[in-house]
């Protein structure tokens, strides 16, 4: 590790202040006095808005201030001497507050001197504690405003009203900017400090402008239209207005024009200065372009989503990227992504021409840009870019020589980054290899859906094409999908079988299926298996037969030993392990599946034990191969048996329905008894609860129990021949609860974990009596989705459903913000080669990563069983 200097440099402080008129003049390179920009020859006019001293934008000209050419010259400020003081809208609020807390006569802050000292001390101490003194300063203004008579000169204070943002009315007469400036000028420095300002860098009177800085031309470049006409920037337009009015004002005043005209002009100057800073001030009509479009002035440039901060600095657009809808393709590898021809033809990878690839790259150029694996651009060794077209392709192909760079189109095998927002963890951006395919969507292996959290209901994803050899190498080593099968979050696989993959292998391996040779080869067609094992049995006419476990074993590697309970495990008190009578204990010996059933626990995303072991023991490449193999096998497996679900799968026999009905009636009756006992005051409160809480709890318990029992009744009627049960038990999709609600009883609808109570006074709906505590009056739904809900049940169900939607909406925004804060705090931490975690200055955060220095993806869950397994693998003996 490199030595880090022991004293890191940090920004000590940042100071903000106001520009004083003196500073404006000092930084100005010229006064701007004419509103004209260019003369008839198109040359910038001296002391005009495009003065050469303000910087240059036209190529060929030199800046008169710094001598550099366009592009190098950063631009320089000029200034306009305003004929009369003008209020700066940006400080509108502060000016208002100041006027109200400063004496109109003697300009002292309207507070007794002891009070001032006290506030000053408070401001000091909050600053020392590293807090913003804003709250204290607000208190100063609040206190000062209350004072009615100046404690220093005994002048009575008048109310200051604000009409337009720049009009301050005191006692029915408008305060002119000159008056305001005069008042501010005579505020003593020590009072300014109490107001939270530093008089050295921000005197209050500087908020009333007497001289206006003119931004450099580089900030407001003019553009030359195709017609040769010049079009000026909005800011330049605004400055022209200001200078014109300024001049007219001067002329009128010198000529001794009547006060009324002077005031009108002053107002106009104020308007132009206001809109120059902010063209969206409420109460001021926005300045418009001749076309009627409002001008984009200084504030509009910075503010909002498209403004400088959010639009240009925090957010930038990126080249070499593509975005379209994703759709599934189970036949491509998890490491691949299907890219539409249209995209592959537009996006390019630059390849340097060498003597070894010269012929190949000539072929690319020769194909042009319209035939797929072609080239779009050729860059000559002098750096000149030439577009490859149908017209010049042959000619250009011959000219290609060593030293050129060819931007060739994407072909199969190129590495790209693939991403789906929100990018919440590192697996949200992974490297894939391209497979160019027809049609217009990105194709994605459904097994990689979990890390991206993608589905195919219209999701769009982004692709980024890597442009350098180094980036491609890095991406393929660190970011490729196979390197991210194991998630560092829990050290297990995050990529794995979903939905049909799980039901497919479940159906294939569950029973002693009899599979003929043809069927077996069909199942294994897409994998690299070329030989079948010894058949497990023979049919009556001597035909060899295999079972599903044997077929699955074909894609397992030799030497794989594994045993674990499956998802379908009943969690018996003592596990009989190998002698499990439910076929729910998976045993794999030397790559041979002996018994059990493959389900979510074996191959599922987040859980898959076999997948986990494959990656940890045989490497990521074998892991990826295994995912590809088992997904293909599973899909053929599920096609062999078929798996479909319909309304009739929710049917249960009449007797069961009767049973359910009786059970629910019985439950309602016992709820009735509870209510009777409550009303007769015979019910005893549970410890720590009121009587009301107790009865609610007991009713909830009773009804919950009833729903579960109906579920059990329905569950007994629906065996593993029912496809919904297959899906629920194997962990492919859905749960037994979903099935219960469809077939037997939907159950209690709850809001905030309680029965529904809101609605009318004393009752939920007008269908019920006031004070009715019964099950149906508070959202118990007796019906099943199959049988259909009655109107009151339907309404309660909608209430409960709405709560769920609101919850998810609130949770995502909250967890998103939490995540953002965490990432911001932790993003610079890095694990060093010595195992310590440090931040950018080299200060240690953890001396050993996670206290133990263990990479969770390599740790085999850190359980003691790992030792037993390893000992068994090496010695062949069982240890405990």
């Amino acid at each position, binding site marked *: 590790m490199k030595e880090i200097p022991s004293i890191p440099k940090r920004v000590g402080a940042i100071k903000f202040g106001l520009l004083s008129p003196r500073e404006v003049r000092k930084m100005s390179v010229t006064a701007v006095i004419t509103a004209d920009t260019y003369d008839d020859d198109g040359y910038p006019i001296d002391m005009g808005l495009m003065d050469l001293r303000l910087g240059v934008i036209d190529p060929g000209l030199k800046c008169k201030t710094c001598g550099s050419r366009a592009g190098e010259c950063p631009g320089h400020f000029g200034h306009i001497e305003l004929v009369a003081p003008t209020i700066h809208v940006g400080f509108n609020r502060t000016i208002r507050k100041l006027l109200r807390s400063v004496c109109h006569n003697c300009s002292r802050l309207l507070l007794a001197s002891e009070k001032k000292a006290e506030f000053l001390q408070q401001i000091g101490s909050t600053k020392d504690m590293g807090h913003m003194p804003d709250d204290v300063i607000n208190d100063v203004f609040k206190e000062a405003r209350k004072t009615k008579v100046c404690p220093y000169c005994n002048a009575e204070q008048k109310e200051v009203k604000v009409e337009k943002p720049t009009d301050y009315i005191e006692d029915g007469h408008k305060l002119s900017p000159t008056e305001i400036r005069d008042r501010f000028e005579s505020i003593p420095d020590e009072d300014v400090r109490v107001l939270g300002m530093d008089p050295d860098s921000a005197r209050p009177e500087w908020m009333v402008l007497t001289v206006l800085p003119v931004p450099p031309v580089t900030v407001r470049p003019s553009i030359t239209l195709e017609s040769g006409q010049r079009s000026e920037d909005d800011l330049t337009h605004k400055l022209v207005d200001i200078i014109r009015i300024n001049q007219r004002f001067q002329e009128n005043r010198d000529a001794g024009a009547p006060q009324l005209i002077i005031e009108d002009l002053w107002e106009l100057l104020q308007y132009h200065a206001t809109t120059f800073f902010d063209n969206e001030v409420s109460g001021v009509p926005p300045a418009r372009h001749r076309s009627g479009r409002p001008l984009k002035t200084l504030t509009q440039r910075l503010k909002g989503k498209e403004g400088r901060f959010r639009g240009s600095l925090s957010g930038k657009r990126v080249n070499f990227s593509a975005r379209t809808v994703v759709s599934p393709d189970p036949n491509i590898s998890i490491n691949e992504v299907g890219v539409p021809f249209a995209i592959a033809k537009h996006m390019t990878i630059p390849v340097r021409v060498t003597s070894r690839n010269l012929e190949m790259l000539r072929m690319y150029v020769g194909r042009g840009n319209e035939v797929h694996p072609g080239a779009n651009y050729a860059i000559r060794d002098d750096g000149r870019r030439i577009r490859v077209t149908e017209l010049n392709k042959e000619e250009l192909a011959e000219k290609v020589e060593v030293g050129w760079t060819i931007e060739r189109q994407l072909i199969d095998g190129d590495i790209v980054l693939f991403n789906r927002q929100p990018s919440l963890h590192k697996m949200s951006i992974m490297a894939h290899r391209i497979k160019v395919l027809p049609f217009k969507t990105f194709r994605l292996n459904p097994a990689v859906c979990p890390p991206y959290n993608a589905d195919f209901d219209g999701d769009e994803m982004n692709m980024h094409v890597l442009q350098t050899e180094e980036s491609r190498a890095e991406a393929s080593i660190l970011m490729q999908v196979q390197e991210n099968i194991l998630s560092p979050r829990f050290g297990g696989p995050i990529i794995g079988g979903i939905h049909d993959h799980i039901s497919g292998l479940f159906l294939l391996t569950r029973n002693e299926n009899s599979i003929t040779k043809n069927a077996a080869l069909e199942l294994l067609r897409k994998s690299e298996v070329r030989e079948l094992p010894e058949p497990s049995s023979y049919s009556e006419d001597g035909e060899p037969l295999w079972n599903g476990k044997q077929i699955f074993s074909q894609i397992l590697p030799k030497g794989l030993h594994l045993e674990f309970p499956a998802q379908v495990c009943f969690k018996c008190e003592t596990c009989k392990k190998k002698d499990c009578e439910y076929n729910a204990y998976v045993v794999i010996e030397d790559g041979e599946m002996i018994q059990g059933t493959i389900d979510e626990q074996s191959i599922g995303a987040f859980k898959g034990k076999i997948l986990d072991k494959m990656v940890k023991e045989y490497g990521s490449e074998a892991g990826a191969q295994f995912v590809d193999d088992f997904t293909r096998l599973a899909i053929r497996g599920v096609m062999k048996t078929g798996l479909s679900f319909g309304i009739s799968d929710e049917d249960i026999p009449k007797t069961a329905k009767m049973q359910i009905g009786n059970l629910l009636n019985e439950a309602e009756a016992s709820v009735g008894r509870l209510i009777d006992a409550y009303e007769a005051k015979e019910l005893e409160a549970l410890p720590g609860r009121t009587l009301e809480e107790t009865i609610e709890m007991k009713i909830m318990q009773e009804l919950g129990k009833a729903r579960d029992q109906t579920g059990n009744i329905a569950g007994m009627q629906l065996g593993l021949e029912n496809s919904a049960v297959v899906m629920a038990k194997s962990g492919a999709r859905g749960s037994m609860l979903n099935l219960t609600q469809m077939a037997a009883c939907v159950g209690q609808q709850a809001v905030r974990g309680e029965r529904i109570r809101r609605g009318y006074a004393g009752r939920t709906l007008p269908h019920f009596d006031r004070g009715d505590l019964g099950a149906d009056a508070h959202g118990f739904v007796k019906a099943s989705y199959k049988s259909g809900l009655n109107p009151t049940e339907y309404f309660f169900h909608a209430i409960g459903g709405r709560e769920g939607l609101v919850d998810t909406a609130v949770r995502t925004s909250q967890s998103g913000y939490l995540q953002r804060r965490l990432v911001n705090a932790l993003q610079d931490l890095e694990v060093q080669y010595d195992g310590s975690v*440090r931040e950018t*200055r080299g200060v240690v955060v953890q001396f*050993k990563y996670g*206290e*133990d220095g263990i990479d969770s993806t390599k740790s085999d869950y850190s359980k003691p069983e790992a030792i037993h397994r390893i000992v068994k693998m090496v010695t062949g003996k069982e240890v405990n």
Partner: protein
Amino acid sequence: MRKFSLLDHELIPKHEIMSEDELKSVLNQYKIGKEQLPKIKDDDPIIQEIGAQVGEVVKITRNSQTAGEAYYYRLVIM
């Protein structure tokens, strides 16, 4: 009135003041200076209890679920 030593509380890991030699070997191991250690305030109750002075380094021995014992070093600051 405190009735027991903070160190006796089961949630408070063992804190001890490091000797010069020990400190030197730790700093050497990570190739860092004292300023790059994590910090702890001298008015922290446990620092007052063991009486560490500003500029000294305390060694904290924590129980870890995965690593058994984990060591942590903090520089005492004002």
